[in-house]
């Protein structure tokens, strides 16, 4: 029988500094220590994991890598509180607790054969990267239609996963656009907030297109409004929510929005579901 509330032991394989010190986001490559446990650990794009810094505490993080990468997973973390600060201070080879995976997933099966649009803001790209890398994986690429991305960052210094971009751009039938909040020297891509650029920079009118968005709450709101105004069916607008998930099991009582527990019924919801939920997020 598996463990329930105590974590499995994992190790940090690699730490990548993603952004400058302003946002201070690092990506941690992690795996379970025991091979037996590693084999059993299967996650889906959109799910999350509870990481424990031993003696400090536990916090939830979305998977930022594709499950097609089986030996490890990536978690991108912004330094913001007690647990994230402790993780940021850890070194490669350090020991970390792992509980999960938890939550539902992006509907990666249901959207096979469809065109996909990814709209990301800042670290909101992290959970989408799990699905992007799954879809663009050579083994899966031909099962999905056209892929368009609009990736928004505050400034060039605040970009994540720069090392992925050339791969994504090279993938067949895929376009990637980048935007930053304000004009700056040497920047050759778009400037402005993503919801203002949607209609101009992306082809929204293609039938059978599903939209995935994640970013700051205010960005998600503007983007979903814009997409709805463009006539997109709310069921085709998919996002992933963040709440203070503590147990991950739909029990501890923190993350519910109405009757739904973000940790168990979510974190992935479509706009049609969100519109029926109380506005408490």
């Amino acid at each position: 029988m598996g463990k329930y509330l105590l974590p499995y032991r994992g190790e940090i394989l690699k730490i990548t500094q993603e952004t400058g010190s302003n946002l201070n986001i690092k990506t941690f490559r992690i795996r379970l220590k025991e091979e037996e446990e590693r084999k059993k650990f299967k996650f889906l794009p959109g799910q999350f994991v509870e990481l424990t810094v031993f003696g400090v505490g536990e916090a939830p993080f979305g998977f930022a890598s594709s499950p097609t990468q089986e030996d490890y997973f990536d978690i991108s973390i912004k330094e913001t509180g007690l647990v994230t600060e402790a993780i940021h201070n850890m070194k490669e080879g350090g020991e970390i607790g792992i509980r999960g995976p938890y939550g539902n997933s992006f509907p990666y099966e249901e959207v096979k054969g469809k065109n996909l649009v990814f709209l990301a803001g800042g670290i909101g790209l992290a959970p989408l990267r799990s699905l992007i890398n799954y879809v663009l994986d050579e083994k899966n690429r031909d099962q999905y239609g056209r892929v368009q991305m609009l990736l928004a960052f505050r400034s060039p210094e605040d970009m994540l996963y720069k090392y992925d971009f050339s791969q994504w751009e090279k993938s067949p039938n895929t376009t990637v656009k980048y935007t930053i909040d304000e004009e700056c020297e040497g920047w050759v891509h778009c400037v402005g907030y993503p919801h203002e650029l949607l209609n101009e920079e992306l082809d929204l009118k293609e039938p059978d297109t599903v939209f995935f968005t994640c970013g700051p709450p205010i960005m998600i709101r503007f983007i979903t409004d814009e997409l709805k105004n463009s006539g997109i069916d709310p069921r085709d607008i998919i996002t992933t929510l963040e709440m203070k998930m503590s147990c991950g099991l739909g029990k501890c009582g923190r993350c519910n929005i109405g009757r739904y527990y973000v940790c168990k019924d979510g974190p992935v919801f479509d706009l049609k579901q969100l519109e029926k939920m109380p506005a408490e997020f």
Partner: protein
Amino acid sequence: MAVLKVLQKDELGKLLETLSNEFRIIAPVVRKYGKKERVEYHQVEDFSEIHLNRQPDTPPKKYFLPQNERLGEERSGEEVTETGDRKTLIFGVRSCDLSAIDILKPVFLDDDFTDTYFQNRLENTLMFGLGCSERQENCFCDSLGINPLGDENVPVYMHDDGERIWFEVKAKELEKFFTEFPDGDPKELEEKKNSWLEEFKKSAIEIGVPIPLPELVSFNAPFWKEVAANCLGCGVCTYYCPTCFCFGFFWEKREEEIDKWRTWDSCMFPLFTKHGSGHNPRETQDQRTRQRIMHKFSYHPSNFEGVPACSACGRCISQCPVNIDLRVILKTAEKYLDNQEGVKSSG
């Protein structure tokens, strides 16, 4: 068919004596806190201390979800439930508190994530029910469809007629503890139960609000600010509640090891839902009061076959330092919803 036994009150000690050979006995006893006397569930050695005369101030929830529970050593990770060597027998549990445990079951025994700690304690515990021969301070279980004089899920159900204690022994394996005591007359007990129920009916209140409360209309209603205006956010209601189950984790260093603990937490506390980013989806006290009531009367019944997460024991009413009354909140909701067209029919 249950075996019916009647004991004089001074014979209770004899019964409990024999039961204690097999079980760890937990029962309501009077405990003194300064000048204040409270009736609480506690392990008993001296059976003359047992106090069955009124609803205990605190529910027996802690024997299933301890207020602080050591989950195990965080790194080596053995999950152990410390239940002791004997089975636990909780003596004299009233219908509200019995129903409360039933309310917790689908949450903690769900197929996806069975709570092994709760499950182990549940399997290691049996309860003797106790009927209420009169209404307690602020309770209204009968208004939520709970029978104050019976519960099918316990092996033994007791009735106190003032002089004697009646035992409906439903579990065969427990009959051996009762053989030396005289049989009771089922007709006599039936008559007593009927007269007690009659009294209950006279003081019954009507809970006319639809359960589950319709989610969006109730959530967006303006009355939450009004009903929560006095709330201090002290969380007393949640700590006395037999069904509140919100929890958190904490960690404790023990020599070289680190223990992970689970502790009761409360949706009434402002930091309960606060994100690391600083964002808090339930920033104000009225939002948190709304969460508590909506969880009990809307979200929980929506998720679990219409059963509210409240057994109407009335302790939140008795203990609230600013006299917030759940019955008034439900009445307010009822009035508001009555004036919203089509709400009742659309559920």
